[in-house]
């Protein structure tokens, strides 16, 4: 009995201590660069007046926040635009001047607020279902792509009527 206890103690306790001290935490990822909040990827050209795009969101939450996805989609179309790819044209931002975001902060804060007007200009395709391959785990982060349709023409008109951006062709006589 004493011998068995001693053998067990000599082998397994140090082994356990060694393993615990040497193994790295499973899920920690060292990030050398800042992770973007979201990215926009071009999808096949949307029906007239709309942009069809895939919004890639980075989050530690495995379940997507659909309101945030919608907010990112509208924000991206307004201020960032997106690059095209083979056979699909990219789009410039509706608000190309970054100063307007600051100058009209009051308007945009209300526009993007909880339940704000931005919700009227975006739909999630297939009720926000995630396609195969569009949910990716990167260490402790989740990168999730959701296809959205942004009513770009209506969005531009809304900003023009609010005086945020000039009407197209304004200033030409």
């Amino acid at each position, binding site marked *: 009995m004493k011998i068995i*206890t001693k053998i067990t103690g000599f082998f*397994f306790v140090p082994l356990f201590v060694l*393993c615990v001290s040497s193994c790295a935490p499973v899920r920690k990822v060292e990030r050398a660069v800042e992770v973007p909040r979201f990215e926009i990827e071009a999808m096949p050209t*949307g*029906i007239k007046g709309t942009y069809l795009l895939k919004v890639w969101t980075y989050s530690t939450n*495995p379940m997507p926040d659909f309101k945030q996805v919608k907010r990112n989609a509208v924000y991206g179309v307004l201020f960032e635009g997106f690059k095209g790819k083979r056979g699909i044209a990219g789009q410039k931002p509706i608000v190309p001047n970054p100063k307007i975001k600051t100058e009209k902060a009051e308007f945009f804060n209300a526009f993007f607020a909880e339940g704000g007007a931005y919700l009227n200009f975006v739909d999630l395709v*297939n009720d926000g*279902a995630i396609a195969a391959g569009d949910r990716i*785990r990167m260490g402790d982060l989740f990168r999730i792509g959701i296809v959205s349709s942004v009513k770009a023409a209506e969005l531009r008109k809304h900003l023009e009527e609010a005086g945020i951006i000039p009407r197209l062709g304004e200033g030409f006589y």
Partner: protein
Amino acid sequence: MKYYLSYSIALLCLFLTAEVFAQILPRHHRDIHSAIYRRSSLYTLMVNDVDRNKAEVIKRSFKGSPMPDKFNDHNLSIRVFNPMHYSASNTDLPDIINNFFRENRIGQGLVAKWFNRDGKGYFNINLVAERGLYNASVMQAEIARFSARGSSLLADAGAELIYNTFVVVNRFNYIPKEEIIDAASRGVNEVARLVNRVEAVRGVNLLLDLASDVAAEGYVVQAHSYLYKLKWNDSIAAVFYNNYWVDESSMYSVEEKQRRKLAFENSDIFQLEFVGFDAAWALLPATIFTQKTEEELIYIATVRAIDAVIAKLQREHDVFKTKAPLYTVEPLSAKIGLKEGLTNNCRFEVLEKTIDKNGRTKYVRKGVIRVDGQIWDNRFMADEERELTEGADNLPVIDRTHFRGRGKFYPGMLIRQIR
């Protein structure tokens, strides 16, 4: 007391050590060539060994067997061939099959069928578009709905299905029970020789079961199957479209049209490549109480053997495995159904796509789920049939298939059929 405490500590250390090792050892990674599932188009052929037992009955059974729902029917007019006509100096079946393909220009035939080639040599894309629309997943259909091109997007995607064109060449062997009993009496090795040592263990066990069942008459149909794939890539497609394509609206001269027609017929770029081989059994004990004729029993056994070998091909080749994203997790569901060949016995592994710190993409298994309850009928014209059914308004609308299983699952995880 001291001993019990020591033992408890030792056991706890052992347990925790095992847990730690489980954490740091590589997890279950899966090879996935593509997360997107595309319907395969299948052409099935039979090697007609006219001297074999029940050859004529098996030939009729094979020609009458239905194409599984999971595949597009890509059968050409030739379904059966005699190997003696293609053996030349070689009796190896793969060489005989290659001779058959070459002499009958099967590669050309498969491409001609894709593009509905008529007597004048004109092509069209009607079948490509039709299969593209039918292949589309719910997600792809929804994206098309929001796009400017609409369903044309899906129709164009049909061209990608040409890459998944397969030929399965079957050779059947009918073994009556009397032969099995005779072989069994001479030993297990004789039974194994009877089955040509293909799938020897399971085959031998099945045959021994039949031999020992004194009440059964018994029919065993063994199917050996050779799988081939049509070689189709961007280069071949470019040659086809640029050099051989002609249709009713083409502005070519009569001479040019004739030249293109002949160029397609004489081209040697349409080839088939060998993918793999498999074998399967259908065991059909016929009791003394059966009302079925011998031909009916052999038909059933033949069809079962074909289904069994196709099921094995599905398990062993990734391109045939149904894949889809998890649609919901409470309850578990996916937008796949009878069109993808689902049955109540189907099992799927749930995979999470990961990118490691080196940028490598891997799929990690998170669990296994199985079909639970009613399967969505998403086959061609299923919606119209449902509407015409009496009392359809009172029937629940089924627009997805439910699964059961345990694990930490999230919408968007890939599910891949394993059985």
